[in-house]
């Protein structure tokens, strides 16, 4: 709760971080550096890993700062984060693992 009364500078700080990351992503998407596009890592292009990591960083800033979850009680934090952190990777795992049926040519 403390940061709420300490002016607005932290809001603009988060804004500039989000803007910078987005601009960087767009620049990467337009330039498409060949070493990132041509390198395949864990089944997809390296550039896609970069995009996903940057997206998760952006999401963390939005949840932590804008949605204020970083300043809530620890129990509340886990109550909200755990279902998503367990179920979303589980969903992805099921699709990746079981999805190979669709590639079978019968």
């Amino acid at each position, binding site marked *: 709760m403390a940061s709420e009364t300490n002016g607005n500078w932290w809001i603009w700080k988060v804004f500039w971080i989000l803007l910078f990351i987005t601009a960087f992503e767009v620049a990467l998407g*337009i330039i498409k550096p060949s070493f990132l596009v041509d390198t395949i890592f864990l089944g997809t292009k390296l550039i896609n890993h970069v995009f996903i990591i940057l997206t998760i960083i952006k999401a963390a800033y939005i949840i932590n700062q804008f949605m204020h979850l970083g300043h809530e009680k620890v129990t509340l934090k886990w109550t909200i984060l755990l279902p998503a952190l367990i179920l979303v990777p589980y969903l992805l795992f099921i699709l990746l693992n079981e999805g190979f049926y669709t590639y079978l040519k019968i």
Partner: protein
Amino acid sequence: MDEVLDEALVKDHKPAWKGGDQPYEASYGKLMMWFFLITDTLTFSAFLAAYGFSRFKYPDIWPNPEDVFSHFPFLHGEHPLLFVALMTFILIMSSVTMVLAVNYGHKMQKKKVILWLSLTIVGGAIFLGSQAWEWGHFIHGDKGGINTKTEHVVHIAEGEKLSSVYALMGADGHDGMHHHFTVDQVITSLEANPQYNIRTANRMYLTNEDAIAYLRENASEVLLGANLKNNEYGHPLFADYFFFITGFHGFHVFSGVILLIIILINVIKGTYERRGHYEMVEKVGLYWHFVDLVWVFVFTFFYLV
């Protein structure tokens, strides 16, 4: 009513939870908003996971997003990613104005809350307008494509560069007319204009003669624009997911704007000032940031990856 209840509680010392004694140090309303957002997170995760699943099932013939979303209002030529980057910026900006409104709400500064809430509504409205433009552009189409009997969409090219059905047929795709071409017309034009050829669904460029032979054998219809059944850019599922996911997100933005307008009216009327706190602004703020959060993921998985 509230005072009566409070008095009764104090008198009996009964440990009833009506938002006073808060195990999470968050009010009932805020908790319920968070729980709703968790369910919504799972819904959107399922959509995006399904999109990724379909995309990697058809890796060769899935359209390149930068071929699809390459236009900017009032600008000519190809500007991939720029418009959607602007939309992302608008949504992030509206999230910032929302935090400012919440922040001034904590300080009980009614006038500033009104200012920043109004700007948030403007940002949301601009975003919805941008999305309408993007949908319009997607539905109208841009380059046209030719569907084959195996549901692979091929495109007209000039050498090794993507061209359009309109250029081949000598028509203007943006004259507001409703165009219609047949496969025979396209083949006749290809014979008359040997500089044109086709790019196959898996992005191979054929020579003019091969293109004509390929179309004679496989082509089924000329596609202009996109709908739920087929789309000129490539696999029909691409259009289905595009309409469904961005549509569902757009519906969230739309609901958010309505909620913001309702609480803005309440702020102006002084409802929250009389209540003693601006928590309702905070709760709708949570929802608004969530909409921004979802867009961050849609932006990555639909336009970047």
